[in-house]
């Protein structure tokens, strides 16, 4: 479904990604962990080409997408993204946030888009909040709207960039529940998170990334409880307690 081959990314002189490869099968949920600044977010952004990798290849369903002749907008329609800071459109209600991509990017008629938006908001448990503006919602609610907004585009896969790190502890659960349900329904997901409970329950694989390279890869059991690398061990030791 998603394949990344040896990508490198430089920000100026900073070598952020140093040849990362990754293969995610359809319906798989892969969790990426690693210290801050290790390139996890950049890796996600390279997949939907919000950041253009300097070297290497990105495939979505066996189509290499980081070629100049591939429309970036098309690539991003295939892969939904959820951000750490939600990034809901502040001037639009929850409902309008979900609808905007449908009506303006996909060109779906308004009433159809509204029906779909209602259905998606109900799915994330926010049917009663459709007329609220982002500022009137809690962090957890905003993030669930953001998930609904990404799902509205019918993506083939979803990228989650630390979706719960900006949330108060009381709201983390509700967002993780939505994500868990999504994974159970067979959505292909790549999740950058430090929620170890979620990772253990949902992830088919864990990727430990440090300094722009994949240090270790395996099932949650392997990575969390029997790490092979010393660096993995010390990192996991810090976050698992």
């Amino acid at each position, binding site marked *: 479904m998603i394949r990344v081959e040896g990508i490198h990314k430089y920000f100026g002189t900073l070598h952020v990604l140093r040849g990362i490869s990754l293969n995610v099968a359809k319906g798989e949920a892969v969790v990426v962990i690693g210290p801050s600044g290790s390139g996890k977010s950049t890796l996600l952004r390279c997949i*939907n080409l*919000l950041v*253009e990798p*300097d070297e290497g290849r990105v495939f979505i369903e066996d189509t290499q997408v*980081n*070629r*100049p*002749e591939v429309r*970036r*907008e*098309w690539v*991003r*329609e295939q892969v*939904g*993204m959820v*951000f750490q*800071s939600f*990034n*809901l*459109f*502040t*001037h639009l209600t929850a409902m309008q946030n979900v609808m*905007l*991509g449908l009506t*303006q*990017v996909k060109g779906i008629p308004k009433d159809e888009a509204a029906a779909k938006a209602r259905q998606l908001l*109900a*799915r*994330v*448990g*926010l*049917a*009663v*909040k*459709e*007329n609220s*503006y*982002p*500022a*009137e919602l809690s962090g957890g609610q905003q993030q*669930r709207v*953001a998930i609904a*907004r*990404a799902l509205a*585009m019918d993506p083939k896969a979803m990228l989650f960039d630390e979706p719960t790190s900006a949330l108060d502890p009381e709201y983390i659960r*509700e967002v993780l*529940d*939505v994500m868990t*349900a999504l994974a159970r329904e067979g959505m292909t997901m790549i999740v950058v998170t430090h929620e170890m409970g979620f990772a253990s329950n949902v992830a088919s694989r864990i990727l430990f990334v440090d300094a722009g390279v994949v240090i270790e890869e395996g099932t949650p059991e392997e990575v969390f409880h029997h790490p092979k690398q010393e660096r993995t061990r010390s990192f996991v030791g810090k976050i698992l307690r």
Partner: protein
Amino acid sequence: MAKRVPWDRETRWRRLDTLLAAVIVLGVLAYMYELMVGSRGLDPVYIAANYGLYVTAVTVNLYMTTVAYAVGMTAGFFLGWLRTIRSVPIKKVVHDFRAFADTSSRSKFVLSGALGLTVAWAGLKYLVRRLGDAYVEIIRGTPLFVQILFAWSILVVNFPGLFTNPTSVAFSAGLLALTANTAGYQAEIFRAGLQTVHSGQVEAARALGFSRLGAMRHIVLPQALRLIVPPLTNEYIGLFKASTLVFILGVQTEITFVANRNAFAGHIFEIFAIVTAIFLLITVVLAKVIQALESRFRIPGLGIQQTRAERPRARPLRLPEAPTP
């Protein structure tokens, strides 16, 4: 129809605010009157007989200002947008080209041509941006008075055959100068607005599949516009008042009459009083309308919270939330 909400404390304060503002304005006007006119008094007969002339003259200003402002807004938006982008991604251009050349089976001749065009395009964009910078600095750095004379000179010297009579030259030159002037100022207002919208908003839009233009139109601009309504209003009012300067070209505005001392000798204070009253009326009404629009379209939760009383709206019943799936 919205149900009439009984006055709560907030609303009462708001009414008091308005009243107080009116009292202050009237007080200042009274003081100005006392200082400048005093016991001499104004001639009501002259005012009654002549105010129509000045109203007509002000409509010329209003018309010029509005046209210049609208055209200047379009130009200013694009100029401001252009100025938000500072660097030319030469590295990216070369990289994209290299990737293209690697995967492409086209001949060397075609490829070198494509490279030439790409670099020329990047260079052109760079040049246009620097020209934009220069334009804004020139407009901001020189007096409007000079700009008006300059516009007039351009039309007279370079397009002598275009105009049939001096009045149309004067009008066109005035319009040109005002448009060029406001475009420069509005460019900076737009730049500020566009740069204030959080970059995460653009990123989210791009991640949904919006093009650069689509993200600008549906996400950035609607937010930026709300932020820059006050400075844009300011610019309109400023331009409106500055538009009186076109009298130097002989466009018939109220100041033309003021300047024409021979015809209006002895009534200079009446004329100033009329003009002041007309300008004050127009700008106050305009400001109030914009203020109403502003609170109508304001983004909830942005900036200092205004009172709820100003924007009553139907809220859905707060039901207990459905359990998440």
